[in-house]
C-alpha cells in the first residue's frame, strides 16, 4: 500500500513539473508578443484559442461588440475558428467591483479571465500594478505607429481617452456660460456618485492640481455670479487646503469649486440615465456632467432629442473647464487563460481602425494611434445638413486645449486621495 502511494506521488510530482516546464509564463509570452506583428499574433491566437472559452472583464460596455469582429478576422486565417464567449464572455461589473473580481480571479486557483479593460488610474496603480496582478503589453505596431501619443498612454497601455463633459438642457431659459454657473445657488447638476464611479472622484482630486485650479481661478474672476459670499468661501477654504496638504497656490479656487460641486450635484446611477433625462423636453434647465459618447444612443422622438442638449464647452463664450478626461487601459491578468489571444486582441483594438471601431465609431473616445480614429467632426450632419450640432466632436486636441479638459494623473490622485477622499465624503454625506 505504502509503495503504491509513493509511486503515485512521484508520478504526480513528475507530471506537475512537466506541465510547469512545458507551459510558458504569461510574462514570457508578452515578451515575445511585443516583437510580433499583428498577423503573427493572429496566427498564434488561432492556434491557442480555437474552440476555447474567452472571458474578460471591463469597465466599458462596448467590449462585446469587438469580439465578433475579432473572430471574423481570425476566421480569415482558419475558417473553422470559433471562440466560445464571443457572445457573452465580456462582463461589465459596476460599483467598483471590477477590482475585487480581478483580484479574486487572479489570486484564486481557478482562473477565468484572459484580460481586462479597466479605468481609474488611482486604484489600478495601488491595487493592480504595485501588486503585480496585471501585466502590461505594448504591441509592436503601436510603438511604431505614426503620430502615436506615447506620453501617459504606454504604461499601462491605454486603449483610449474618454471625456466626460458638461452638458445642459436648452429648452428653458437658463444659461451656463461659465464653469461656476454649474455650482451656483439652486443648481443640481446630474452626476454619477463619487463612490460608485471613481474616475469622477479622481476628477475632483485633479481640480486641486495647480494647472486646473488656475483655470478655475481665471473662470471665477470673470464670473457674473461672483459675490462676497463666494469670495469669503474661497478665502476660508485656504485653511482646508493646508489641512489636506494641497500645495498649489491657487488650490483654494479648485477646492472651493469642488466643495460647491459636491454640495450641489444630484447623484445618478449611471451616465445612461443622465443622458436620457437631459434629452427630454421636460428636463428644463437641468444640467449634468456625463460621458460625451452617450449622445450616440439617443433616439429621436417627440419627447427626446439631441437638440435639447447643449455641450457647454462648445459655446463660443463659455469660460472655464469643459469637462474631464480619463483613460481605459488594456492589460492581461497575471494568470491569463488565453495570453496569445489577449495580446492579439489588444493589438487589434489599439492599432487598427476596425478593432477600435466599437469605440471609435462614436464621439468622445480618442485613441493614442491616430490611424485608429474616425473623424467625428460631422457626426451631427444628416444628408449634408448640420442637424445635431451637439454631436459634432471637435477632436482630442481641441478638447485638451480649448475645451480645457481636466486629465487624470494617477500619481497626483494617489498623493491627495488619502485626505481628500474623506473630505469629499463628508460633504456629500451631509447633503
Amino acid at each position, binding site marked *: 500500500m505504502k509503495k503504491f502511494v509513493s509511486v503515485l506521488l512521484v508520478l504526480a510530482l513528475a507530471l506537475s513539473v512537466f506541465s510547469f516546464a512545458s507551459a510558458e509564463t504569461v510574462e514570457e509570452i508578452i515578451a515575445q508578443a511585443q516583437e510580433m506583428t499583428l498577423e503573427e499574433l493572429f496566427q498564434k491566437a488561432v492556434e491557442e484559442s480555437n474552440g476555447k472559452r474567452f472571458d474578460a472583464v471591463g469597465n466599458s460596455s462596448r467590449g462585446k461588440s469587438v469580439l465578433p469582429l475579432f473572430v471574423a478576422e481570425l476566421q480569415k486565417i482558419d475558417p473553422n475558428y470559433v471562440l466560445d464567449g464571443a457572445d457573452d464572455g465580456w462582463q461589465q461589473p459596476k460599483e467598483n467591483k471590477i477590482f475585487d473580481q480581478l483580484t479574486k480571479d487572479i489570486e484564486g486557483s481557478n482562473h477565468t479571465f484572459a484580460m481586462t479593460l479597466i479605468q481609474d488610474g488611482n486604484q489600478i496603480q495601488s491595487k493592480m500594478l504595485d501588486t503585480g496582478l496585471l501585466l502590461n503589453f505594448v504591441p509592436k505596431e503601436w510603438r511604431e505607429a505614426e503620430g502615436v501619443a506615447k506620453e501617459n498612454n504606454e504604461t499601462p497601455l491605454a486603449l483610449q481617452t474618454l471625456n466626460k463633459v458638461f452638458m445642459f438642457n436648452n429648452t428653458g431659459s437658463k444659461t451656463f456660460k461659465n464653469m461656476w454657473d454649474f455650482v451656483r445657488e439652486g443648481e443640481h447638476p446630474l452626476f454619477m456618485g463619487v*463612490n460608485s464611479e471613481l474616475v469622477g472622484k479622481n476628477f475632483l482630486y485633479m481640480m486641486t492640481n495647480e494647472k486646473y485650479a488656475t483655470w478655475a481661478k481665471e473662470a471665477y474672476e470673470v464670473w457674473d455670479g461672483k459675490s462676497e459670499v463666494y469670495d469669503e468661501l474661497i478665502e476660508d477654504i485656504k485653511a482646508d487646503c493646508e489641512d*489636506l496638504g494641497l500645495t498649489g497656490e491657487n488650490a483654494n479656487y479648485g477646492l472651493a469649486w469642488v466643495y460647491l460641486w459636491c454640495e450641489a450635484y444630484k447623484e445618478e446611477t449611471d451616465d445612461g440615465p443622465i443622458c436620457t433625462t437631459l434629452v427630454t423636453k421636460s428636463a428644463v434647465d437641468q444640467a449634468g456632467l456625463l460621458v460625451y459618447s452617450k449622445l450616440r444612443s439617443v433616439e429621436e*422622438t417627440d419627447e427626446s432629442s439631441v437638440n435639447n442638449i447643449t455641450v457647454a464647452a462648445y459655446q463660443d463664450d463659455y469660460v472655464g473647464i469643459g469637462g474631464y478626461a480619463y483613460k481605459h487601459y488594456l492589460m492581461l491578468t497575471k494568470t491569463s487563460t488565453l495570453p496569445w489571444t489577449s495580446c492579439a486582441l489588444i493589438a487589434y483594438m489599439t492599432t487598427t481602425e476596425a478593432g477600435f471601431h466599437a469605440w471609435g465609431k462614436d464621439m468622445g473616445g480618442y485613441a493614442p494611434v491616430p490611424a485608429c480614429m474616425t473623424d467625428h467632426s460631422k457626426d451631427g450632419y444628416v444628408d449634408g445638413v448640420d442637424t445635431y450640432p451637439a454631436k459634432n466632436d471637435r477632436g482630442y486636441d481641441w478638447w485638451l486645449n480649448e475645451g480645457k479638459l481636466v486629465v487624470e494623473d494617477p500619481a497626483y490622485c494617489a*498623493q491627495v486621495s488619502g485626505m481628500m477622499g474623506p473630505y469629499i465624503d463628508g460633504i456629500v454625506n451631509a447633503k
Partner: protein
Amino acid sequence: MEAAKKQNVSNLRRKWNKFWTYISKPQNAILLVLGIILTVTTIYPMVTILNDTVQIHPGSIDAPDPNASGAKALEKEAEKEAAHFTLLGNEMTTYNWVNLFTGTEITRINRKRVEMAVAATYLIPALKNSVLISIFACFGAILYGGIFAYLVTRTNLRFKKYLSAIFIFPYIMPQWTLAVMWENLFDSAAITGGSDGLFASLFGINMPQWWCEGLFPVSLVLSIHYAPFAYILIGGIFRNMDANLEEAATILNTPRYKTFARVTLPLVKPAILSTILLVFSSAMGSYPIPHYLGLDTLSTRYVQMNADRAGQASILAVIMMLFGILIMIVNQKTTSGRKNYTTVTGKSGQSSLVNLRLARTPISILFILLTLFMGIFPIILFAVETFLPNPGDYSFLKGNTSALTTKWWLNNENVTEQGMYGQKGILYNAEIWNAFKGTFIVAICCALAAGIIGTLIGYCVSKNRRSKWAAYVNNIAFLPYLMPSLAVGVAFFILSANIPNLYNSFLLLILAGTVKYIPFASRSSLNSMMQLSGEIEEAAIIQDIPWWKRMGRIIIPIQKTSIISGFLLPFMTCLRELTLFMLLCGQGKIITTMLGYFDEMGLYAFSSGINLILIIMILAFNALINKLTGASIDSGIGGDS
C-alpha cells in the same frame, strides 16, 4: 488495582455503548453531522468578516500610503503605524476600528470647516436610517397586512378570493421593482432633478422631495413588500383560531372592540412577533430599495465603502451581523415562552363574520384599488416600458402611437446602436438567457439542498425536543435567516477570498443561498412534524422498519405538502434574490444581477422585460405546484394550513 482497571474499561465500554446507541438512531446521527456542517457554514463566514476588519487591504485607508504629504496626512500615517501589529506571522491592524470609531476627518459643511468624526460620516447616519426603516417597515407591514388579514378572515369583505390572491404580488416581485416604479411615477425635473415621471408629465403634479426620496418612500416600499408576509402569518392564525374563544366573550355581552383587544389580539401576538423578527432583519439588509430611493443605510454604505475603506466596510457588516444575533436572542426568548403548536383543532367553524355594513363596499373598493396599484399596475408598467423608444419616454401617451417600438424584444443586430448601448433585443440576447439559465441552476440547487437539509432538521429536532444539541442546531440553522442578507453576502464574499476558485462560481451562490434559506424549509418542516404524533413512527419502529423506509413510505408522504412548501420557498426566493448574491458574482451570472445592471444603466426596457418574465414565471410555478400538490408559497411562509 485490577478492579479499578476493570471499572475503567467497563466505563469506557459503557460510554462507547451509550454513544453507539445514540448514533444508531438516525435522527441523532443526522443531527450530529448537520450540526457540525452548519456550524462551519454559518460561523466560519462570520468569523472571516471579523478577521477582515483587522486585515490590511492594499489600496485602502488602512494600508500605509507612501505618497502622503502634508502635516495632517503624516499624522494619519503615524496613526496607521501605531495600529499595526503582527499575529502569528500575519500583518494586521486595528486601524479600521480605531479610525471608524474615534478618527476624525476634515471636511466642510454649510460653508464651514468642520472636524467631523469619521463615524458621523460613515456610520451613524447609515445606522440610524437602517434601524428606522426596519422599524417603520415592521410597523407598516403589520398594519397593512394585519388589517387586511382581519378583513379577509373575519369580515364580510367583498371580492375576497381575488384580493387575497393579488395581495401577495408585491412580495413575489423583486424588491426594488416597487422602488423603480415609485421613481418612475413621482420623480420630477423640478423637485428631484432629471426628467419628469408619470405624475409630473401627465398631471403636472410635482411630489415633494420627502415623498420621492429618503426615509418615507423607502419605509413605504418596504412595508408594501413585506405586508403579504404579515398577512399570511397573521391571517393563518385568524383562520385557525377557535371561534369559541370569541363567542364566549360575545355571549357575555363584551363589546366588539374589547373582544378584539383582549381576546383576539393576544392570540395573534405570536404571529405579530414572528413578522417583526423576520421583517426587521430583511428590511435592514435590503440594498436595492435604499439605493434607488436615495437613502443612506448600512447596506448602501457598505457597498460605497468597499472601494477604499474595505476594512471599515466589514465593520459595518459586523454590526449588521450583531443585529441578526440580537434578533435571534429575542426570538429565542419569545418562542420558548409561548406555546409551540397552534394545533388545528378543526373546530373553527363558521364564526359570525363582522358585518361591515355601509363601509363594506367602499372598503372593498379601496382594497381593490390598492392591490391593483401595488400588484397589477407595476406589471402593466413593466410591459409598457418594454415598448418605449427611450427609457422612461412616455411620449406615446400624448397620442403618437408610432413612438412605440419592439426593438427591445426583437433587435438582433450588433452594429447600429438604435439607443441600445450595444445590447441585442431580449429574445436574442444570449447574455440574458444565460443569466436566466444561471438563476435556474442556482434556484433549483438551493431549493434541493435547503429543502432536504431543512426537512431533515425539522424532523430531527421534532424528535429530540428536549435535547440541547437539537435546539442549538435549530438555532444555528435559523441564524442566517435572521441576519441581514447583505451581511450574509459579505460573509461569503470574504470567505471566497480565502478559498480558491470559489468566487463567481455557482457553488458559492448555491452555498450562500442554501445557508440563508434552510430556515424556510426547517420552519415549515418543524411546524408540521410537531403536529404529527410520534406514535406514527413508533408503530413502524416496533415493526423493525428501517429508517429510510419510514421516511420514504410514511413520514414524507404524510408531510408532502409542507415539505414541498419547504422546497418551493427557497426556489422562489432565489429566483428574485439580489442582495444576497450581488457581491458574490459578476453581473452576467444570474438574472437578478443582470436586472440590476440594466436598471443602473438606465435601460429600463430590459430590466422591465426581465422583471415581467420573472414574475410570470414565479406566478406560473406557484399555481402549477398548488394545483399538483396543494402546496404554495402562502402555506410555506405561514407554515400551517
